[in-house]
């Protein structure tokens, strides 16, 4: 007898529908599984047979064939145990009271018949609800995650036996449904706030501009300036997440198994700070079945690279394409995977190996050492950074001065209104932020007055900038004007943009303090 159960697999960051078919026939007793399976799925056969036996179901000595289709997608992971078990039981003749064509089944089985949670439930369930499958059966631990898919009727169970009783109609439980009508991105209070950092007005202002126009930032300077502290707080001044953005982030974290079971939906912008020993696969994603890397985990949030020159040259170079395209595409023999990677890059570095430059009294490095150290950041990577700032460590005595620092909330309101202005301005274009402006778009959207035009001419001449360098200043000036709510760029905005500009070179010939 033939039966079919719907399940789902993860491809990249999205789910795809998989049909689990079972057929029980006379013949030599066998349990065969086909359908381009990875070894973790092939092993499911043993688990399912044992789990069925230990749950009290008798396996007749027949020829049982399992097929997972479509057969051209490689199936990975352990979520197919439960659908296989159900397909076998249905093929053996148990009757279903529910519509199996409208139900997606995901779950791993233990040998005792207990259900175990799996990763990547949200992207699979989310794909199903978009494709008209309205019920889902998952392990109890995955219920909250599955329920994030709006409108999905989620049924959670602890054992295989419970599931079978449910589909036979003898165990009726109410579904968990989340209509998400009352969604507001209430951030979990973790106490991080810009006001925690004393002083550093310039650094804070630079971050505000960066957040408003999605400009990548490079901070240079000695340790103890609060670079990491502020970078960590950067998500608190970025605009609140929309529901779609939350889902996108949660899907990614689900695939990597990084969800907190109590607070499944991620409502806070991610902040990822990988250590500088990370490999390039760790950074952009990879593996036989590609898994998302740090840049994807930082999607819609901040990727903070501390001690930038210490990262391997390779790892930094692979950042170039995702910084431009805002996604990363990883190709493997059987298919290519696209992971979103729309992150804001915030990098920090010392200017020299000893870490004290530009304090010449303390720095023991030779100019050549400094040049070599800074040369580890390639030109193309520097080109994608709009803001550079030199920061100064805070003197000890100032650490304990009581001052009224601006709260993240206040800054965020300015950032949000600046973003709204940009979205309104670029509604006909394929871009969202000032930082994404390119040659022709700059001409189209930015008009300069007479004074401003002259000012740029002066800057161009005096600072020996490249055309690209001037464009970076224009983009920054546009963001600063947006923060102020101004329709046109004024000279004041240009002055500030010039201050925060990325001059392309950090090491000013033999200079220091």
């Amino acid at each position: 007898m033939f039966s079919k159960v719907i399940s789902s697999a993860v491809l990249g960051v999205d789910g795809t529908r998989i049909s689990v078919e079972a057929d029980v026939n006379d013949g030599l007793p066998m349990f065969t599984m086909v359908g381009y399976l990875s070894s973790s799925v092939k092993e499911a056969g043993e688990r399912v047979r044992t789990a069925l036996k230990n749950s009290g179901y008798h396996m007749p000595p027949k020829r049982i064939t399992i097929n997972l289709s479509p057969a051209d997608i490689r199936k990975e992971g352990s979520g197919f145990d439960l659908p296989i078990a159900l397909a076998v039981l249905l093929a053996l003749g148990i009757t279903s009271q529910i519509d199996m064509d409208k139900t997606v089944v995901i779950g791993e089985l233990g040998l005792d018949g207990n259900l175990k949670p799996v990763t990547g439930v949200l992207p699979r369930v989310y794909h199903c609800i978009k494709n008209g499958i309205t019920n889902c059966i998952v392990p109890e631990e995955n219920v909250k995650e599955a329920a994030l898919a709006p409108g999905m009727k989620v049924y959670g169970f602890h054992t295989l036996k419970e599931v079978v009783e449910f589909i036979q109609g003898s165990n009726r439980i109410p579904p968990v449904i989340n209509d998400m009508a009352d969604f507001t991105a209430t951030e979990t209070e973790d106490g991080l706030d810009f006001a925690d950092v004393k002083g550093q007005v310039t650094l804070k202002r630079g971050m505000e501009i960066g957040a408003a126009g999605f400009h990548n930032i490079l901070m240079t300077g000695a340790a103890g300036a609060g670079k990491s502290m502020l970078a960590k707080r950067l998500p608190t001044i970025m605009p609140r997440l929309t529901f779609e953005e939350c889902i996108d982030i949660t899907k990614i974290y689900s695939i990597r198994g990084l969800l907190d079971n109590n607070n499944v939906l991620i409502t806070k912008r991610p902040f990822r700070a990988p250590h500088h020993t990370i490999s390039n696969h760790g950074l952009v994603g990879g593996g036989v079945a590609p898994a998302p890397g740090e840049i994807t985990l930082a999607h819609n949030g901040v990727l903070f690279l501390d001690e930038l020159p210490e990262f391997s040259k390779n790892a930094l170079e692979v950042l170039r394409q995702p910084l431009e395209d805002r996604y990363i595409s990883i190709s493997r023999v059987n298919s290519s995977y696209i992971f979103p990677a729309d992150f804001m890059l915030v990098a920090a570095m010392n200017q020299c190996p000893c870490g004290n430059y530009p304090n010449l009294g303390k720095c023991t490095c030779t100019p050549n050492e400094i040049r070599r150290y800074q040369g580890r950041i390639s030109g193309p990577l520097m080109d994608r950074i709009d803001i550079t700032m030199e920061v100064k460590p805070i003197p000890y005595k100032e650490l304990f001065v009581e001052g009224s620092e601006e709260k993240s909330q206040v800054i965020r309101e300015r950032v949000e209104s600046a973003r709204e202005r940009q979205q309104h301005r670029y509604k006909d274009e394929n871009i969202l932020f000032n930082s994404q402006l390119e040659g022709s778009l700059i001409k189209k959207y930015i008009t300069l007055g007479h004074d401003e035009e002259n000012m740029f001419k002066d800057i161009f001449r005096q600072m020996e900038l490249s055309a690209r360098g001037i464009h970076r200043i224009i983009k920054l000036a546009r963001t600063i004007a947006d923060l102020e709510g101004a329709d046109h760029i004024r000279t004041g905005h240009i002055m500030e943009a010039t201050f925060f500009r990325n001059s392309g070179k950090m090491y000013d010939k033999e200079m220091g303090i």
Partner: protein
Amino acid sequence: MNSLEENYETGVLHLWLNNIEGINLKHIAHLKKNLGNVWNIHSAGKAVLTELLSEELAESIQRNKNLDYARRLYDKLLDKGITILYPEHSYYPVKLKNIHFPPQLLYIKGKREKLKKLNNTSVGVVGSRNPSTYGREIGRYFTGELADKDINIISGFARGIDSVSHKAALDKEGFTVAVLGSGINVVYPAQNIELYKQIEEEGLIMSEYGMDFQAAKWTFPIRNRIISGLSDGILVVEARAKSGSLITVDHGLEQGRQIYAIPGRIMDKSCEGTNNLIKQGAMCVNAPEDIIEDLLGEEYKEKERINNDLTELTPQEAKIIDCLGLEPVYIDDIIQRTCLGITKTISILYMLEEKRRIRQPVRGYYILQI
């Protein structure tokens, strides 16, 4: 002897003599004193030479009498626009003749007509290779003012104060001489290549060492005697207690040159050397006019050193100028002291930079421009 001075063959003979293995400038001076000139040295027999030098060296000269190599070398030098000077040459700086061990051969890059200028009033500028911003600014200011008075600026082309003083002199369209510790063709430090070209064009580059001779630890102290020798006075801008600049000062004292030292703070290690010099009797200079007066005898005029004129500034600009000095101040500290807010402060700083009243030695740090 005059007729032999500057012709091609004399040059060849000097190159020949200076390139014989084992012969150093002491030997050459000794030979010239006894035999008169290079022609006589070349034609001297073994017996005469043995009387003046050790047997070994006399033998070495005898063996190498062929001038082909020296001719080829001289052609190459002329081809590259390199002039050679020897004590008998009419352009050889008079001041150098009177020092202990004057160089017997100087390779010079630059325009020939500039050679005359070597006899003008000159100041040798020495100082730290890693100066503070203050030292750099003061060095630039002093050198610039001296160059403005047509005083030659002589220095050693090293990093730090040396480079600053060469640049300051060129900026004021003054005349500057770089005395290298390496061969005349070797740009060391390499990042100074632009400066090298500029000095070649507008000043002179000088070395005792042949074309591609690589600098060694011992060449720099020896070179220093030429810096002090060419100068009438030596200005020490910023030197630590055991700075190499003090070697130049020692040479200068031996040669009877005036020593000028710019005082620094007493607890500051980077000016310990200059302060010690003042204690030992060097002339303490706190304005370039002190040096100009001492060298040129010009009347000292009290002059506003830093442009402290606040009248042409807006009150807010004056407020910012007020909290700046020659020690770099970070922008956050300016904002804190002036309470003007970041946006306002940045635009005023921009205007002041535009007016050349202030500078950013490092991003975000500001000093007054002098």
